[in-house]
C-alpha cells in the first residue's frame, strides 16, 4: 500500500460512518460598514501604529515629486520599478532600473523600489500585492531596502473578508499574494522589538486621494 492509500485509509477508518456536521452559519462580519472616507481614515490610523512613513497625496501628479523627495531623504539613487509602472509616477531625474527578469544581485544593491498594489485593508493597516498591474514580481518588492508603495484611496477596503473576496480572481489565475503590514520585525531576542529584518527595512505608503 502506498503512503497515499495508507493515510487516506487511516483517515477514513478514523472517521467511520458518522455524518458530517451541518455547516454552521457564520455570524462574523463579511462586509464593513464604513463609508470610503471613514475607511481611509481608519487605514491611516492603523498605519500610524506601524513603523511606516505615510504621505497623503491629493492627486497622481504628486507621486513623482514625492518619490524624488523620499529618495533624497533616504539617500538612494536608483529606483527599481516593474516594467509596467505608469511613467507619470517616475521622477524625471531618477536613475531607473526597470525589472525585466533582472538577476537578484542587481536588485540587492540597495535601490528604492516603487510599485502600486492590489488593495489595502483599513482595519489592519495591510497592503496586498497580487502580481497584477504596476506591482512586478515578488522578488522586486523583497530585495530592495526601501519600498515606496502607491495606494489609491479607492483601493482601500474596510475588512479582511472583503479583501480576500476581492483577491479570489488573482488566486484563481495562479498569481501569488503578498500581504504586508508595516516593515518586517522581530522580537526574538529577549522580546525586544527590532524593526527591519529581511524584507525592505523602510516602507513608505503613498495614499493618493483621487
Amino acid at each position, binding site marked *: 500500500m502506498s503512503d497515499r492509500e495508507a493515510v487516506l485509509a487511516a483517515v477514513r477508518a478514523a472517521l467511520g460512518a458518522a455524518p458530517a456536521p451541518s455547516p*454552521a452559519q457564520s455570524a462574523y462580519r463579511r462586509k464593513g460598514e464604513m463609508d470610503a472616507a471613514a475607511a481611509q481614515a481608519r487605514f491611516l490610523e492603523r498605519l500610524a501604529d506601524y513603523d511606516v512613513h505615510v504621505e497623503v497625496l491629493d492627486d497622481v501628479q504628486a507621486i513623482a515629486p514625492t518619490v524624488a523627495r523620499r529618495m533624497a531623504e533616504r539617500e538612494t539613487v536608483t529606483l527599481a520599478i516593474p516594467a509596467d509602472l505608469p511613467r507619470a509616477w517616475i521622477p524625471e531625474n531618477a536613475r531607473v532600473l526597470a525589472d525585466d527578469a533582472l538577476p537578484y544581485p542587481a536588485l540587492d544593491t540597495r535601490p528604492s523600489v516603487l510599485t502600486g498594489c492590489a488593495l489595502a485593508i483599513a482595519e489592519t*493597516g495591510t497592503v496586498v500585492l497580487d502580481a497584477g498591474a504596476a506591482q512586478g514580481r515578488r*522578488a522586486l518588492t523583497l530585495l530592495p531596502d526601501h519600498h515606496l508603495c502607491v495606494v489609491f484611496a479607492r483601493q482601500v477596503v474596510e475588512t479582511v473578508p472583503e479583501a480576500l473576496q476581492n483577491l479570489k480572481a488573482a488566486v484563481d489565475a*495562479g498569481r501569488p499574494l503578498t500581504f504586508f503590514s508595516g516593515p518586517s520585525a522581530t522580537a526574538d*531576542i529577549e522580546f525586544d522589538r*527590532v524593526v527591519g*529584518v529581511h524584507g525592505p527595512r523602510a516602507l513608505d505608503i503613498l495614499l493618493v486621494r483621487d
Partner: protein
Amino acid sequence: MTAETFPQRAHRSLRDSQLRRNLAKATSTIRTKTAKVSAELPDWEALRDAGQAIKRETLAELDRHLVALEESVTRAGGVVHWAADAAEARRIIVGLAKAHGAEQVIKIKSMTTDEVELNPALEAAGIRPFETDLADMIVQMAHEKPSHLLVPAIHKNRSEIGALFRDQMDRPDLSDQPGDLTRAARAYLRDKFIETPVAISGANFAVAETGSVVVVESEGNGRMCLTLPKVLISIMGIEKVLPEWEHLEVFLQLLPRASTGERMNPYTSIWTGTQAGERRAGDGPGEFHLVLLDNGRSKILADEAARATLHCIRCSRCLNVCPVYQRAGGHAYDSMYQGPIGAILTPQLKGLDAAGSLPFASSLCGACQEVCPVRIPIPDILVHLRGRVVREGHAGLGEGLAMKAAGTLFDHPALMALALSMGRAAQAPLARDGRIERLPPPLDGWSLGRDFPALPKESFRAWWKRRKASR
C-alpha cells in the same frame, strides 16, 4: 525522548532565572496585546465560533478535502507527496533535495520539520540545513531545543546570543544589542537566500479549493524562502487543510490577533502551485512539492474525545496564559509543542508511553480554553488523556508518577509554586464546573492538593495574588 518526566525537567527550568525573567516579559507583553486586539473586533467571538466550526467540519470529511487539495495543487503545477510517518517524510524531502544536488537548503517555519526530525536526516545526507527565522537560527546554532512556539529562543539572553553569533558568524566586532544582532543575521543570510536553490517550509494553511498555501510570518525570511529559490518543498500536517478560500478570511483574522497580538502579522505569503518560465522566476518557485504528513494525526482523529486537538492553529496563546508553562518553561515539555497544546498534542503524537506525564502537567484551570481562538477544550482532553494513561496502564504512570512527582516537589522549595499551580484545581474544585470530578479512578485521588493543609498558607496566597496581578 528522554526518560525524564515533566516534573524532573520542570525542576531544572525553575532554577533558571534568565528563562523565568524572559518568559515573564514575553508572556505578559503578548497577553496584554492579544487581549487588546481581540477585544477590539466586535465580532471576535463570532470569528472564534466560525474557526471552530470550520475546523470541525473539515476534519469530519478530511479525506475528501485532502484529495481535493491534491488535485488543486497538482493542477497548479505542484507535486503532492503523502507521508504516513516521520520516516517517510524524511525520505521524501531528503530525496528531493539530493535529486537537486543541494549541498545546503534554507528553511522557514519548521515546527513540522522539527517533529519529523528532518535536520539530522539532511545532515546525514551531507546537506546543511540553514534555519532562517532568527530564533530558530539561534536555537540551531546553539544546538538547543525551542522553548516557545512563537519565540523559540526566549530562554537565551542577548549576551549568550552575541557570543554565539561572534563565534559562528566569525564577527568578533558584534555587540550584544538586539538591533546589531538582527542586522548581523540579515547580512549572514542574504547570500544564502539569493544563492540557495532549494527551500523547505512549513505551512499555516492550505486551501483545497484553489491549491493555495499560506505562510504567516514577521521577519521576511519566509518571503525570501518562498520567493527566490527554484525549488520549494513545503510540509504540512494533514489537519492544516481548509476546504474553501473563504475560510481564510476567518483564520487570517484569528491567527495574528491570538498569536502575536497584532492586527495583522507583518508578512503573509500565499502561493498557488508554481510560477513557471524564465520571466516568472522571482515570483515563486519553478518547482513546488507539498508533503502531507499524517504521523499520528489519523489516530488523534479516531479518538473522538481528543479530535479537537487537531483544530490547533499554533498561535501559542494558550502558552502565554498557562500558569504551569510560565513556571516550568518550554523545555519541560521536551517537545517542539509546549504548554497546554503540547500537553495534549505531544503525548498523542509520541505515544502515551513516551510522553504520558504531560497530561498531568496542568491544573485544569481552564485559562487555555478560555483564550483559544478555535475553542479547543484542552482541560477536557487532558482529563481524557489522563484516563487513558491509567486505563491503558502506560509505563507505571498515573498515580505512581504523581506521587513520585510530589516527593520531588516537596523536597525542593523552588518547585513549590509549580506544584501549587498544578494542584490548583484540587484546591478550588468548584472553580471549573466540577471538572475535577471527572478524573477517572485511581486518579480521582491524585492531586498534590491533598497535602495542601501541610503547606504554609501565606506563601500560597502570596503566590496566588502575584499570579492574578500578572494576568
